[in-house]
């Protein structure tokens, strides 16, 4: 009888059930989409923040001071220590290698530019543009095009294995050079593949493939410093602690959190004779920005959950209120309060499960759409959320119906049937 009651109620009141079901579906859709966006927003914004540049720098441990003023390097070129280029792929072998979006080695070299019989001392910066690197079975492209996305080239980027160079914008203007011209640097004729604009010191420099810079300097494999772009977690008091003073489990927790400090520590471990440090301008501020945006989206998600819970409750309350006469009839035929309430709760549970199921799928699609249109990347929803969402849907539906059901079962059948209230 109970099953029949519920079944017939769904069969005969399709319109009402559809309305309530639609409200639950919509509520669950919004809730799912917002939870998916909120859990992923940190990662997405973190990637956007990488456009500001690398947040870690690796230098030789025993290096002399940099003597550099507005892009002019006064340090003797062979002075100081170097890192070994062969060690660089190990960066991708650290614990947090998936968080490292790219790295770019730098080797500034002083060169003489010969032009119209005049000599001029300028800096040639050797680096990777988009060099394929392999570590283990993995192959990936890295270089300034990943770590310094604000660098703009008119013309073409040089190939990493070529002898082509990029000419800084201001230097090119001073020498009235264009892309595809050739330039004489320290006795070599090099082709200019493009004009580089960065807004920084590189505008006065020549940027070349790393191998070419090493060749000019006469030090194969030499790298002055490496910029590393990593997705990090905002730094907190725990992150600032000294790893040497930590005991086992605490050290493990520190080591396995993607703080700028712990990633720097791991870089230092993997590259021999190196010193890795966060670039505070980038690393410190991105933590603050990230915390703010995550906090904002979290609060907004709470608002979304609240609004969808309210919508579900309102729809359920309306649906039950309209069925007073039915309640009256059931009670007049001898149904107890418990029997009436269980019919309503069973219906609510069915609606919630159905709405939760459809809403979860729709919410996943919505989150995917938001990810694609705003961030150009996937927002995937963890399958583990599915049971959670279903349980939340049932709880919210029950909570929303509870007041209305209580009122309905408390009705005097006589009044309910007469329609007086």
């Amino acid at each position, binding site marked *: 009888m109970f099953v029949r009651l519920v079944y017939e109620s769904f069969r005969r009141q399709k319109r009402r059930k559809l309305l309530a079901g639609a409200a639950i579906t919509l509520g669950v859709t919004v809730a799912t989409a917002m939870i998916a*966006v909120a859990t992923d927003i940190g990662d997405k914004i973190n990637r*956007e923040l990488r456009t500001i540049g690398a947040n870690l720098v690796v230098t030789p441990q025993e290096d002399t001071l940099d003597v550099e*003023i507005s892009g002019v390097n006064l*340090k003797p070129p062979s002075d100081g220590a170097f890192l070994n280029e062969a060690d660089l792929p190990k960066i991708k072998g650290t614990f947090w290698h998936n968080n490292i979006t790219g790295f770019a080695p730098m080797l500034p070299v002083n060169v003489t530019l010969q032009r119209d019989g005049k000599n001029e001392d300028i800096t040639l910066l050797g680096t990777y543009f988009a060099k394929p690197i392999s570590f283990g079975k993995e192959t990936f492209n890295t270089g300034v095009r990943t770590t310094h996305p604000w660098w703009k080239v008119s013309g073409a980027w040089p190939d990493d294995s070529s002898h082509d160079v990029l000419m800084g914008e201001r230097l090119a203007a001073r020498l009235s050079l264009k892309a595809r011209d050739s330039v004489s640097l320290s006795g070599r004729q090099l082709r200019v593949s493009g004009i580089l604009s960065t807004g920084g010191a590189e505008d006065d420099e020549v940027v070349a493939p790393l191998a070419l810079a090493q060749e000019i300097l006469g030090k194969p494999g030499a790298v002055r410093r490496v910029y590393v772009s990593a997705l990090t977690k905002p730094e907190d008091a725990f992150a600032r602690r000294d790893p040497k003073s930590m005991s086992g489990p605490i050290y493990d927790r520190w080591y396995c959190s993607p703080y700028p400090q712990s990633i720097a520590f791991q870089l230092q471990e993997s590259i021999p004779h190196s010193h890795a440090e966060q670039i505070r301008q980038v690393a410190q501020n991105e933590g603050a*920005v990230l915390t703010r945006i995550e906090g904002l*989206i979290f*609060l*907004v998600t709470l608002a979304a959950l609240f609004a969808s819970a309210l919508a579900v409750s309102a729809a359920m309350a309306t649906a039950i209120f309209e069925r007073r006469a039915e309640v009256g009839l059931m009670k007049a035929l001898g149904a107890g309060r418990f029997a009436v309430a269980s019919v309503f709760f069973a219906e609510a549970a069915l609606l919630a499960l159905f709405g939760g199921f459809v809403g979860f799928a729709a919410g996943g699609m919505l989150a995917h759409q938001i990810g694609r249109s705003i961030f150009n990347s996937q927002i995937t929803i963890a399958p583990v959320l599915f049971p959670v969402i279903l349980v939340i849907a049932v709880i919210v539906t029950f909570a929303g119906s509870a007041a209305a059901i209580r009122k309905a079962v408390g009705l005097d059948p006589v009044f309910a049937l007469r329609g007086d209230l």
Partner: protein
Amino acid sequence: MKGNAFNSGADVAAKRENAPHTSMFMRMLLRAAVLRRGRAAAALFAMVVAAAVATAMLNLYVDVQAKLRREFRNYGANIILVGRDGTSLPPDAVSQAESVVAGRGVVAPFALVVARTSDGQAIVVAGSDFERVRQLDRWWSVSNWPAAPKEALVGVRAVSVVSPKNQPFDLSFQGHSIHLTPAGTVQTGSAEDSRVYLSLADFVSWTGVQPSTVEVAATGSPEEIAATMRQLEQAIPAAEVRPVRQIMEGEARVLGKTRATLLAAASLIILTAALCVLSTLMGWVFGRRRDFAIMKALGASDRLLNGFFAAEAAALGATGALIGFVLGIGIAAWIGRVNFHAPVVPRFSVLPFVLAGSMVVTLLSAILPISLLRRVQPAVILRGE
């Protein structure tokens, strides 16, 4: 609070011939709200919540840009002034830049030379205004800022070269030498770590070199910053004005994406809230079909009935929107305090939108059931079928 309803209702009623209708209309409106307190309150509650959520979301959406821009100014300068072709800037460049920026940002001068330590090693020495640098480059990790003249701030990598035991040291530049006391160290992870910083006054009297760079952190939208750059170019013709592209582009990207996400979230939330109001109100109006039937049976015209329910809906919408607006401003301010540690400024420009939106939703939810009911004979409704 029923003032609006009374006025618009009175307009409708005034078109009818006699005065008694006016007072009857009023009485019906008021009694309907008082007698069915529970359901009217539920409808009003839904309206208030929806309006509050909508207000808070719109307010945040409008304000988040300003809030995040403030965060991004912690990245330091977004405009750099340098002397053309490597020359120094005119001595009044800082005060000129300051007057252009006029409180909407921070300006700090930097002068650089390569000096020698007592054992002949080359080191970059910078002169600057510590008070301004503190505001501009907040990420500098400084153990102790110099306060007295002839005190220096030493980069963490330069410490071992100039003053490993924290002792006073000498630097010389073109035959002139200066005796300095280290006040503290600075760590930034970039070029500053290899430098020694002095106050600009000490620096100029020692080297005679004027600042070659002025860094400006200007606040505002990209258009405002572009305008500031043009003004700087006009005010200081001897300087080349450059944007710090990486900061500007990163800021624009992150702001754009955050706003887009917030807009998507706000639309979803407002849509959900509006549908919640719609379903509650439709239920409310539908539940009163007997009132409707009785009025119709007693001879009320369709126009009067429409007017009555529309006035009721409008009153509910307006009341709900106003209360919700105040509440929403409160929520937005709270979020601002919790998340950004600064209040979100109430945007009254949001009010017309919230008010209009509420009215549309309430009127829609009154008119839909009424147009359904109008086709039914009053007798059928009264019989309870």
